[in-house]
């Protein structure tokens, strides 16, 4: 009987033990281990990303520079495709791809996931989408995205282009996911965070087949999409288009600034490209073409190139001389074919001796050699090296040798040599004659066209500038970064600018002036030519100018590589642009044609092809 009771007890114990084991296991998977909850969410929840339209970019008059238009990505979910095949020929035609490419993409999609959608073709225009909707392609669908469109087809490198993010971008900024787009240069890149907007998410519950069944918790966890913010650029589209037209066939740049605000009115980098080329199906091929073009159209010369400033730099030396008191406007210096002391600097033919104003107007080399030596050898500073330090300080106050802080991320800072540089080069033994070429803007000096335009703005303002910037207004914001509203004074007092301005006025308006061709009757154009020697062949033709003389509305720097004398190409371009901007029309249409038809040959670029 004992045995029976023992067995009954054992059996009950076994029953209880079995249930306890099961409950313990349930406790583990339901309460302790969280991985099952995640797995369940992975199973049933789909996070559908909603891409915001990118912010649009307007010119200063409200005209579209860059628009966002609807585009569609063609997607495929392999397991939902019809097993009996489909009309591949029509689909390829609609999507604009070859049959091989379609097959390759389908295979790739299949390898990625049979249940989830993969992209087959990106950025199809709306016409393709409408055609696609007419057919019944099981397993395929389109997803709304936006893509850029450029109604004016101008300002390619200024606006920048859009491209897909790479792994490094995703690493750096967790906002991005594979397949997202971002701005790669120009405004698109500088204002990326404003333009891109905020992606939205929709959390949806799907069944085992991936079919959407409902919105998860009535959309409680959805995040709304925020469209990108529109920007108003300070660019004048008319002027920009005109500038690009004038620069056809030439390599170089035009930068125009409104002196009273620092707003960039135009920024031409030539050769340019049609920004629409970098959108849509042909983007890849076009991009490679542009990238391999030896004249480098993708490269924004206006802010990224280093040029010798040339004679336009004489303005700076003149101003420093006046401020330092080593030069008075009436001071005359002789010039017979150049400056003859030391290695010497040649000069062209003009009357002699002359005072400051005519020296500016005729761009006398010798005159500014005297001026520079007076600055550097000023006994006040004890030694030429100390004098040089002072000179360098002045030059930097004009925005040279450093980044101006504009809204171009790729801005080139330029180069102003310092004392250490010459100590190293000449092993400590150098004097004002050694560095004499600085007098005429040659030698080691390097600056970007943006810095030159800024110099024009400084002279126009008689002594100060606003940091040049290309964005006028960000929608929904009252102001830009405060740094753009701050006046930056040079170390030269306002009163010293008068003789320099007079010289620039005379250069355009008097017989023998170098900028005669820039004259537009009634507009009081002031200008200074430059003919910059450079190691790449023929001299660069440059012109620095502003107008009108009082209360200037536009300051401009034109740089035409290998264009020869400043007066031949750069000066007429500047004149035409000023005329166009201030009067809204062009009187001298013959000059426009002549400039447009001027083609300069660039053996140093084209040879490398």
């Amino acid at each position, binding site marked *: 009987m004992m*045995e*029976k009771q023992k*067995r*009954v007890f*054992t*059996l*009950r114990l076994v*029953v*209880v033990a*079995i*249930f306890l*084991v*099961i*409950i313990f*296991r*349930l*406790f583990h*998977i*339901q*309460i302790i*281990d969280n*991985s*099952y*909850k995640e*797995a*369940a*969410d992975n*199973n*049933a*929840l789909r996070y559908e990303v909603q891409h915001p339209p990118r912010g649009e970019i307007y010119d200063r008059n409200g005209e579209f520079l860059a628009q966002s238009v609807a585009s569609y990505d063609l997607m495929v979910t392999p397991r939902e495709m019809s097993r009996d095949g489909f009309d591949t020929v029509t689909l390829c035609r609609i999507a604009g791809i070859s049959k091989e490419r379609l097959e390759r993409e389908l295979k790739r999609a299949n390898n990625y996931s049979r249940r989830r959608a993969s992209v087959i073709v990106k950025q199809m225009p709306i016409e393709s989408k409408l055609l696609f909707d007419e057919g019944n392609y099981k397993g395929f669908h389109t997803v709304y995205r936006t893509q850029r469109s450029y109604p004016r087809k101008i300002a390619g490198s200024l606006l920048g282009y859009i491209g897909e993010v790479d792994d490094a971008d995703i690493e750096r900024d967790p906002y991005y996911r594979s397949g997202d787009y971002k701005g790669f240069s120009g405004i698109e890149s500088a204002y990326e965070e404003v333009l891109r907007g905020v992606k939205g998410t929709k959390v949806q*519950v*799907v*069944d*085992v*087949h991936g079919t959407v*069944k*409902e919105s998860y918790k009535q959309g409680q966890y959805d995040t709304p999409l925020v469209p990108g913010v529109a920007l108003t650029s300070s660019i004048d589209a008319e002027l920009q288009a005109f500038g690009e037209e004038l620069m056809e066939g030439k390599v170089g740049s035009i930068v125009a600034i409104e002196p009273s605000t620092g707003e960039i009115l135009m920024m031409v980098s030539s050769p340019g490209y049609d920004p629409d080329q970098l959108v849509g199906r042909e983007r890849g091929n076009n991009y490679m073409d542009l990238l391999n073009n030896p004249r480098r159209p993708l490269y924004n010369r206006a802010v990224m190139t280093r040029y010798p400033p040339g004679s336009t730099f004489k303005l700076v030396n003149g101003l420093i001389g006046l401020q330092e008191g080593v030069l008075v406007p009436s001071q005359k210096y002789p010039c017979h074919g150049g400056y003859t002391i030391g290695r010497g600097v040649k000069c062209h033919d003009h009357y002699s001796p002359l005072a400051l104003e005519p020296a500016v107007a005729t761009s006398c080399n010798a005159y500014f050699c005297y001026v520079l030596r007076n600055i550097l050898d000023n006994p006040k500073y004890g030694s030429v090296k100390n004098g040089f330090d002072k000179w360098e300080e002045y030059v930097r106050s004009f925005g040279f040798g450093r980044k101006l802080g504009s809204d171009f991320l790729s801005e080139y800072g330029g180069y102003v040599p310092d004392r250490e540089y010459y100590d190293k080069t000449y092993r400590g033994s150098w004097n004002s004659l050694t560095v004499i070429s600085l007098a005429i803007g040659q030698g080691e000096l390097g600056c970007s066209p943006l810095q030159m335009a800024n110099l024009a703005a400084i002279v126009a303002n008689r002594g100060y500038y606003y940091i040049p910037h290309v964005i006028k207004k960000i929608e929904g914001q009252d102001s830009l970064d405060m740094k753009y509203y701050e006046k930056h004074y040079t170390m030269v007092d306002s009163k010293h600018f008068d003789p320099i301005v007079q010289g620039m006025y005379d250069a355009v308006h008097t017989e023998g002036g170098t900028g005669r061709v820039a004259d537009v009757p009634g507009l009081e154009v002031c200008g200074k030519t430059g003919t910059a020697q450079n190691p790449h062949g023929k001299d660069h033709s440059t012109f620095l100018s502003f107008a009108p003389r009082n209360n200037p509305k536009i300051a401009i720097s034109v740089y035409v590589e290998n264009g020869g004398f400043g007066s031949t190409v750069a000066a007429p371009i500047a004149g035409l642009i000023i005329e166009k901007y201030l009067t809204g029309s062009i009187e001298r249409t013959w000059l426009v044609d002549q400039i447009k038809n001027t083609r300069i040959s660039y053996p140093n670029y084209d040879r490398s092809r």
Partner: protein
Amino acid sequence: MIGAGSTKNNRADWLSVLVFIALMVIGWANIYAAVYDETATAGFAWGSQYGMQLIWICVSLLVAGVILLIDKIYIHQWTYPIYVVLFLLLLSTLVIGKEVNGAKAWLVLGPVSLQPAEFMKFGVSLALARYMSEYSFSLRNPSSLLGVGLLMALPMGVIMLQPDMGSAIVYCSFLVMFYREGLNEWVYYILCVVVGVFILSFFLTSSVLVLLLLLVCVVWQAIANRNPRESVIYLAAVLLISGALYFGMNYLLMKELTYYSALLWTIIPSLLPVAIYAFRERLYSIYAFMMLLVGAIFFSSAVDYVFNDMLAIHQQKRILDLLGIEQDTQNWGYNVNQSKIAIGSGGFSGKGFLEGTQTKYDFVPEQSTDFIFCTVGEEWGFVGTTIVLALFAVLILRLMRMGERQGEPFKRIYCYSVAGIFLFHVAINVGMTIGLLPVIGIPLPLFSYGGSSLLAFTVLFFVAVKLDSGEE
């Protein structure tokens, strides 16, 4: 309500009847949730699974009422006819059965499909109760055992021919009842060893496994016979001799000999002195341990054969997946993985009725039948699963208690059979959904969709209640 007509039998076990009905209701609610589709038009669909199941519940309750109304004596009298009729029905499936999921297990009678194997459990339970309660019956008597074997083997054989392994394995549940009736406990020890060796053979090398078996047998024996000193000496001797043999052969005689062989060459000859020792000391149980050890060693070397040649590929994969040796959540392990995800995602209190995304949106396969427990786990959480399991535990313990309440062996044997069947179904089914046991397709009583299973469990249970009722 059920016992309305059984006024004179007031001693029926109303608590277990209540538990039974509760499980039935909860089970139905879960089928409703498992097949629930929000997008379907409103209204109650009789043709759907939950509609059909409700009809079956009504039928089952009707049958339960009838069982409670008839006189107990008839049950005893009709035992063999019931067995024979059910067996013939089962047999007929081999000829006129409808094949579902690879098994010819269904009889189609007009709109109703029945699975005779489900009812056969009832027939066998009754027949065993009748046969084993005869005065001449003894579990030690070979001819008696043969009778029991026949009563079970006949239906099992037919079910295996269908083939429906799950339903066949259920017959192991009678081991519960046999244990209560006094079947030699060595049967159970050997079963444990077989299962243990089978599992361990996947994880241990053969020599370690043999050493482990030796250790278990010797220690067990030492406890039983209270001879720890001799046992330790024996173990030490075996280790020493086998080690010496191994090193001697490999490093002195330069003959290659695995440690496994060295062990066998030590253990098998050692059995002779052990046998002499057992004879002299009159510790006869040592012979049983010797046989167990030899059998286990023999079985361990045969596991590979059993696994590779006697099991179908899907059975092999399910076992490998369970043991965590081979993870394949996309194919063989898909069901169990999804089932665990559904149950695990329920958390403490579950997602709420009709809120289970995993079951509602078909991530769990077979969710209204074999994997119905997932719905419980996902929508009602740990609280729900524990309550359901507690109800089952109460039901099973209650059935055992009914069996123990004074009365004739017929009732006791029958009640224990039913308790065993319930226990086995619940343990195997729930164990499978939470990855404790390999996937074996048997229903969860009162929960899984299917009329045959529901009706069969109702009959099984209410006959037990009836037999228990009205006793003095």
